[in-house]
């Protein structure tokens, strides 16, 4: 499957990936509205790790053997049979956050506003290229089949 690959040597720490991820997962999908009019504000599904000048954007790796899927008590965390992406069914999620505990990359976030749903990368289902990749100004993340 196509995955997001990280080229940390070119990550400039601008966090535009984070901003565009947030916008894409907002109600309106409009940047100014998403930031200024929607409350609670949508969450970005990725994290930007930074230490000194080293930085990179990290999203769910959509592991082949996904610990979050195994740990999920309700079956909310599942693999999409068509795209192979790991998705979270918000209807089923009860907010036990076991997935958060077992994720080896720390990329599943708790949505404190709703307190039920884990927030994680869905590879922008329906988009040809995830918005973080499309909006990275320096090609520090790429979406490719390897």
């Amino acid at each position: 499957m196509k995955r997001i690959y990280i080229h940390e040597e070119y990550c400039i720490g601008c966090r535009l990936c984070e901003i565009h991820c947030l916008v894409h997962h907002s109600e309106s999908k409009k940047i100014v509205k998403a930031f200024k009019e929607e409350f609670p504000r949508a969450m970005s599904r990725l994290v930007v790790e930074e230490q000194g000048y080293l930085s990179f954007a990290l999203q769910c790796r959509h592991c082949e053997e996904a610990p979050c899927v195994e740990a999920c008590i309700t079956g909310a965390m599942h693999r999409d049979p068509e795209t192979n992406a790991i998705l979270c069914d918000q209807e089923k999620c009860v907010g036990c956050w076991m997935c958060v505990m077992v994720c080896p990359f720390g990329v599943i976030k708790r949505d404190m506003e709703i307190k039920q749903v884990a927030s994680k990368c869905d590879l922008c289902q329906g988009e040809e290229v995830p918005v973080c990749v499309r909006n990275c100004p320096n090609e520090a993340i790429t979406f490719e089949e390897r």
Partner: protein
Amino acid sequence: MSLSLYPSEFRIERDPERCIVCQVCVRQCANDCHVYDEDDDCIVSNERNCVGCHRCATLCPTNAITITQNPSDFKTNANWTARVIKDIYKQAESGGVLLTGMGCDRQLPSYFDRMLLNASQVTNPSIDPLREPMELRTHLGSKPERVDFKRTGEGFDLTTELSPQLVIDTPILFSAMSYGSISYNACLALATAAQTVGTFYNTGEGGLHKDFYPYGENTIAQVASGRFGVHAEYLDVAAAIEIKIGQGAKPGIGGHLPGEKVSEEISQTRMIPVGTDAISPAPHHDIYSIEDLRQLIFALKEATGYRKIAAVHNVAPIASGIIRAGADIVAIDGLRGGTGAAPTMIRDHVGIPIELAIAAVDRRLREEGIRHRASIIAGGGFRNSADIVKAIALGADAVYIATAALVAMGCHLCQKCYTGKCNWGIATQDPYLTKRLNPNIAQRRLVNLLHGWSLEIKEMLGGMGINAIESLRGNREHLRGVGMTQNELDILGIKSAGEAW
């Protein structure tokens, strides 16, 4: 500390309707122009630091930022212009020499802009480069006096021994920019782009990082007065050697790479201790005459050699001397040529425009009957393919571009290269900033630029009814001048617009 009288050069306008306080501008500005105010959850501008590089405006996801010239004017005075007054304020505060980067930006007459190209339509019908072959390949080097051959059973065999030639697929080379003045990624982009296009890039006086040895076939290694990073392997790995005598942006003075830019990698490449200033003297201390130069040329000729001089008033006889000293290629650099750092007064007031230098050198060499003994590469402010066509019609064999290459990579000509804080990751060694130039993107953009320019050159040649760049070289009949005095036309060796054969 007293109040600085130097006004902000730019205004940062932030549209509050659009600003989403995402802080991309805060993270991207190396000059701390944007500061996040936590109490009010807003971003405030520190306009005094702004250099007008447009990094923030380019990356702002909502186009909320506009950078404009500070409209605040001094009282109109034809002599004491704002530029003059500001320079004095700056110098009264610092007590030092005014420094700047890039090429001369004064409004001097541009001869390129006053020359027009010819198009033939009836007697020498125009050619469509998309349908018919069009040759841009150029051979740089010394050409033989005459060619001898003998008949063999199947055809002819050349008996004349030819000098080594640098073959370029388009008459454009990347001119000297050292590793140190520009970043590793910028050097890598130039090297890979030169290889893809089939041309050369020039190491400048900073030596050659070992990682770039694989691009040796597309490398011109420079030997400058400081001799930084010059060793046998460096000379061997490159396809040609350039002895740098001067530089258009700062004729008559040497180079200076501040110690802060001399990192571990640069120290190894230049063969100097980490953190020491890399100062190249104004002259080569072993070249005080054409005869001395001849000795150095022959010492370096185990590979191939050629020289570079800065265009000054007596450029023609000097070029002649250089060729007689044994150079295969002479590079001349004009007034508008760029640099990473130069004293402002030198950059803006020393030298001559490259157009006049090419014409003067080409004519002198023809008069002396030695034009074939060396190729001429002209550099110094080529902005587009039309400038290149005009330079070749004036007599250059090929041109050097550097400013245009930097602009293609993202440079916004803020002229602050000497500060080492290039927000575009080009003229800096700061690891936070160098990452901003992805060499793959930069290479793609450089290749695109050369590809586009080459196509345009072919179109212009086609319009003139010629199908090879060779036929344009020194063909001044294809140029006409507008708005020039008779003397200027004579120096350029061209007719006035409207004048026929």
